[in-house]
């Protein structure tokens, strides 16, 4: 009886270890896919901003729609030390396993002559 129980415990520990490895690999793959999607969304937000010259500085936030509604974004446009250019920083963040993850992209944008 004791031997059988010990072997079962050893087997269970082994199975759990293998299972944990699979779970970790799956989590890492998911994290990679989420980061890639967030990069794409952040780049899309920067593209939106770059289409027309910047008219006002400030901070905006929102949530993406449709399939990407788990991702939220914060966009901050501020003055840069370079004449005629503004600095735009886009941060896309999401929740994964109870922790917040994020990616941040930044670029310089042309400032409208109106401001």
């Amino acid at each position, binding site marked *: 009886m004791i031997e059988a129980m010990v072997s079962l415990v050893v087997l269970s520990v082994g199975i759990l270890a293998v299972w944990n490895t699979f779970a970790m690999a799956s989590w890492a793959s998911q994290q990679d896919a989420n980061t890639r*999607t967030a990069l794409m969304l952040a780049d899309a937000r920067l593209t939106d901003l770059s289409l027309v010259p910047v008219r006002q500085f400030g901070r905006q936030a929102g949530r993406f729609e449709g*399939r990407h509604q788990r991702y939220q974004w914060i966009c901050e446009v501020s003055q840069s030390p370079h004449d005629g250019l503004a600095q735009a920083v886009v941060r896309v963040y999401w929740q994964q396993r109870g922790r917040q993850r994020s990616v941040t992209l930044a670029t310089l944008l042309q400032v409208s002559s109106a401001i």
Partner: protein
Amino acid sequence: MTKFPFLYDPPRTPRRHTGPHRRSALTLIELMVAMTVSAVIVLATLEAFQQGRFVQMRVDRQMQASAREYDLWRLLSGDVANSVVLLADDDAGVWIGQPDSMRFLAVGPGGRPMQIEYKLAAYGPGTPAGGLLRSTRLASGSVPVGQWGHLTVADGVRAFDLQYGQVAEGSDALTWTTEFNGAQAPPKAVKVRLTWNATEDESADGPQVVEWVLATRADTSANAQGGT
């Protein structure tokens, strides 16, 4: 009496294996308990594996969709960003945008122009493949040379809707139209909306729609052609 001793012998009391000579072996009860415990553990493990397998399959599908979307976005945004307008007798150098297709010249690897067309290929007999089709052919300047090559870059696409963003002269505002014919410069941006056919397990999450705004280098193209 000796012939049938069992009829006269008093009944024997059962031997209890107690004391220093107790026999060490599994009783039937212990064996059944061990087997029950083993069965419960095996069943729980199988159940966990089964659930894990479903989760894994779902995660795999999500990652495949994510990778498919990302690759397509990279391809489209790269092509649109590298699009140029080259004026010549042949109209192949003109940027032509329709509500469901677009055709333009793009500078390919090595700086060689390549004519690119995106359109939705119909499903049905006789068609090589359904989905979003990317057709390319090499060009010399704005004159196409060679044959069209076709590649399905996204399967199961139901709709491919396009809009073209332009900035009016002397204005900062962007206006969107469903058609574009650019002989001077590419549009400022292209808004792409793709709708996929939802599969059975994806239908619960709603229609698979993505919308991207892809920027061209309209300003630099215009400058390259004399600052128009």
